[in-house]
């Protein structure tokens, strides 16, 4: 099956007065019709920029974009702006992190929805666009939809605004939805509702979804595949079950270790990943994760790892540890060892090298 979207060696750089920001650095990923890809990472890992670039929303703004993003065989990166506009909001749609600021404060909900519809259905009458808007609001679970068309965004709650954003994104039945942290700004209870909604609509409309999130819990529930991003690159990529059952990258271990779980005893501390995401202007030498990696070896500061297939597993990983070392480390971490204990047991080192 040919992928619906195939991103190939995508690089996005921004020139700023402090230097060049390497926001996305050689990202390759693919997604098939009807599937969900989870794009996971911390703030500044390049996951949002990847999504925005696929939408063509990083164009201009001093961005230097190389690589390809083939949607249905057509390259979105090299495509002309006019052609891209006919796809944007039509075949490919996006919803954003902050529904509070993503709707125009001065226009009524109905008008904003109808505009999205009529842009890609120029022959549709006002009445048709309004009917369609009401239908969409109803579909995303807003009660009394027709009356709500005349409301302004500030009269809606955060959850309702995100539902409206989803309605607006799906009004033209896109084949690909890019959801950029759609639940981050919402209450936990509303988060679950919105995710359920996206999942239900995905089944109904048969669209593919790229779920951009820092929340592995979201990914575990929704995604078929997961790409873990760090410092503008994919460091681990594979089917969701594999990533959760046998993660290979120390960064993925860190992400998994820092999730609070209902089953974890309350007095057991969470294990945050030490340090901060690196500067994307002056990136660390060698493996970009080495300054934060508990298992770092001297050579890791020199050699830049490639994303390579894992022997005997369906996924790919960019890590300089051997596959045996990684398996042994993960086995100990899974059994409750701390990174220090795991390192001492597997690599025989008391402190990071």
């Amino acid at each position, binding site marked *: 099956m040919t992928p619906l979207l195939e991103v190939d060696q995508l690089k996005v750089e921004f020139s700023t007065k402090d230097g060049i920001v390497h926001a996305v650095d050689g990202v390759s990923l693919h997604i098939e019709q009807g599937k969900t890809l989870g794009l996971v990472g911390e703030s500044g890992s390049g996951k949002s920029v990847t999504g925005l670039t696929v939408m063509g929303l990083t164009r201009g703004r001093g961005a230097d974009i190389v690589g390809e993003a083939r949607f249905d065989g057509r390259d979105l990166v090299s495509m002309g702006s006019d052609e891209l506009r006919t796809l*944007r*909001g039509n075949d490919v749609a996006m919803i954003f992190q902050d529904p509070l*600021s993503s709707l*125009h404060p001065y226009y009524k909900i109905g008008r904003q929805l109808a*505009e*999205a519809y009529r842009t890609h259905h120029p022959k549709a009458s006002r009445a048709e666009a309004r009917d369609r808007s009401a239908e969409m609001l109803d579909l995303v679970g807003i009660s009394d939809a027709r009356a709500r068309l005349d409301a302004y965004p500030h009269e809606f709650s955060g959850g309702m605004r995100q539902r409206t954003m989803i309605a607006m994104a799906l009004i033209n039945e896109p084949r690909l939805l890019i959801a950029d942290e759609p639940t981050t700004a919402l209450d936990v209870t509303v988060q679950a509702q919105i995710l359920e909604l996206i999942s239900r609509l995905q089944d109904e409309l048969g669209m593919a979804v790229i779920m951009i999130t820092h929340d592995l819990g979201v990914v575990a529930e929704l995604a078929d595949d997961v790409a873990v991003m760090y410092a503008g690159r994919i460091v681990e990529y594979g089917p969701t079950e594999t990533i959760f059952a046998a993660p290979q990258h120390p960064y993925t271990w860190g992400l998994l270790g820092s999730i609070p779980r209902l089953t974890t005893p309350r007095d057991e501390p969470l294990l945050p990943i030490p340090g901060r995401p690196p500067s994307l202007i002056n990136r660390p030498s060698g493996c970009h994760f080495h300054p934060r990696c508990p298992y770092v070896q001297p050579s890791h500061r020199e050699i830049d790892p490639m994303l390579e297939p894992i022997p005997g597993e369906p996924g790919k990983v960019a890590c300089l540890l051997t596959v045996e070392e990684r398996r042994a480390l993960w086995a100990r971490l899974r059994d409750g060892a701390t990174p220090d204990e795991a390192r001492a047991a597997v690599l025989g080192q008391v402190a990071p090298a």
Partner: protein
Amino acid sequence: MGRYIIRRLLWVVFLLLVVSAVTFVIFYTLPSGDPAALRAGKSPDPSVIADIRHSLGLDRPVYVQYWLYLKQIVLHFDFGFSYQNSQPVRQQIFERLPATASLAIGAVVVWMLVALPIGVVSAVRSRSIVDRLSMGGALIAISAPVYWLALVALYLFSSDIGVIHIFKGAGSYVPFSDSPSQWFSSLLLPWLVLAASFAAFYARLLRSNLLETLSEDYIRTARAKGLSERTVIWRHAMRSAVTPIVTILGLDIGILLGGTILTETVFNIPGIGRLGYEAIINSDLSVIQGTVLFGAFFIVVANLLVDIAYAFLDPRVTYS
């Protein structure tokens, strides 16, 4: 909304009372001359001055004079008469209002026609050569005082004293009712001069507002919908960017309708500003009072209208 407007109107009345009282007090503590002496002619007899003072009511206590003044305004809409030429102040102001309004409204049209495209282009092509040149030019236009600019413009371009004879010079004002074409040609240079600094200010304001708006999340949403860049800028970004400009525009129009003293004086346009200027020179209190009150009236009313307009421009604003 209704209650809000009534409350604001009461506030307008109160403000005008304060303004008139302050003008009275200033005139009596720091008089620019003795109106009675000025009216009495050259080397008059002291008894003549005393007579005039009595007939003008200037020998009464200040608070009595103020009270009588207010009573006349409230009961008869009568602002007194000029000490200088005995004409009623109300009549003088209304006679001169068309000239001031012509100057003000024309200048507003000119500066908006200039500022809107420059502001939009500078924001959309920010940091480009066009942007840098227009913002540099704007800085010069803002820094140039209007009386200086007016004189330079007259010396360079007026048909009487100018180097190149393009525009009509000072003192050429013709009312619109007499001849629309002459009215237009006589006001062209004053409009350009008065509009220069405003155009620069508005272009800069629009540019910064638009730049800020263009980085908003809802603009990204508009682009994500697949709207054309023109629609994104004109329908989505401009809608938010011009709202604060409408506010300031309302206030500026109010201020200008109260008289553009410098421009009217340099170009010798018989407007309210020039009337006020002459009244100050001649210590003509009732005319000073009248022009100040009129100016204040336009400003507070413009303020009120702008606040009311805001409720229509921004759906998030409600008054209760």
